[in-house]
């Protein structure tokens, strides 16, 4: 049955209506979970607010587990969904750069949009920065085109790389995530004792 659009069950006309609706749900969840505040987000790195870790990992494990069940039920054909291609070296480099950008800016692209929506100037500036960054990247692209395309491994999944079946990864992720939730709950309580209440 699914995925609906690649299987032609939903035609292209509805595509963008669906895009907006999904976007609204996404934006709502990001904002309602507290991602419109950079200080909430960065809290994950300083131990005073682990909301990012909680939301993010809960989302990943629910989606992972759900996908496996839905595939089993024949609702989603896992072989037809888009698997992000892996370019190992540029991906690692890019993620390190993103890590810096994350801790400096305090946002990631999606969350900065919601920050703009509730009137935060830093979110707007971050988005302008994103625009400039991508612009700079594109202008200088010929310089690192080879690097950009290096380390290509194809649209590989964890199973393709390690040979371990997907459910084991789902289980391992779930286990690690749940353990992390309990540990961070304790850490957060301790850190907050030593920190003055932050206002935003």
């Amino acid at each position, binding site marked *: 049955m699914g995925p609906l659009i690649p299987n032609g069950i939903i035609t292209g006309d509805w595509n963008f209506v669906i895009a907006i609706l999904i976007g609204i749900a996404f934006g709502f969840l990001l904002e309602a979970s507290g991602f419109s505040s950079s200080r909430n987000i960065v809290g994950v790195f300083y131990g005073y607010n682990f909301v990012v870790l909680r939301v993010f990992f809960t989302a990943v494990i629910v989606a992972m587990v759900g996908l496996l069940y839905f595939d089993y039920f024949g609702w989603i054909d896992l072989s037809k969904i888009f698997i992000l291609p892996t370019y190992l070296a540029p991906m690692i480099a890019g993620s390190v750069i993103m890590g810096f950008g994350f801790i400096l800016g305090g946002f990631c692209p999606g969350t900065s949009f919601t920050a703009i929506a509730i009137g935060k100037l830093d979110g707007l500036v971050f988005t302008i920065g994103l625009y400039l960054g991508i612009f700079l990247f594109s202008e200088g692209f010929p310089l690192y085109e080879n690097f950009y395309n290096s380390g290509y491994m194809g649209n590989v999944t964890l199973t393709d790389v390690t040979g371990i079946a997907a459910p084991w990864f*789902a*289980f391992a992720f*779930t286990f690690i995530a749940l353990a992390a939730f309990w540990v961070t709950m304790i850490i957060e309580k301790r850190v907050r004792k030593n920190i003055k209440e932050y206002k935003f």
Partner: protein
Amino acid sequence: MNRNYIFLTLLMVVLAAGTIFLKEEPEYQQINAEDLLYDVIQPTRYVTTDQIAKMIINKDPTLELIDVRDSKSFEKFSLNNAINVPLDSLILPDYQEYFGIPGTKVVFYSNDDILADQSWVIARRLGFKDMYVMKGGLNKWVETIIKPQEPPETAPETAFEQYQFRKGAQIFFTGSKIEAPGSSTKKEKVTVRRKKKTTAASGGC
């Protein structure tokens, strides 16, 4: 409150652990057994040697001939541009790359048609489409294309047309001359007509 969190944690662990017990993915993507049973009783997969000859002569780019005999026989003789995929290695991933190429018609052939048909069934179970079996196989190929039999006088017009096509194809595949003596002038006319068609289609040859 803490009790609810413990319950949540346990629920999630159970859900995740449950995925491990879901049926393991089959090694190969296979079609539903019922669909396969339905597909094998359709005679639409059979194509004649004439059709294949025509496609080869026309250099039909969609044609992909698969020789399912063993490699020894394949080396001795094979049809033009055929690929050797012995039945026993059909399920090896390396060989599967030959199948499922968009816009191609896979045609299996063997000495007769049994082996080719068996390959067809296995490949169909693997989910590949647009596959055909050359009915009669190479034996029929020899009888119809390499050594075409002249139809009896009483045969309908179409049989003669077919015969003339086969004679043309024979030249294409063996390079032999038509036995000019013995054939009546009337037939020669027909030959010319058929030949025209084949040459027009075969282009350079």
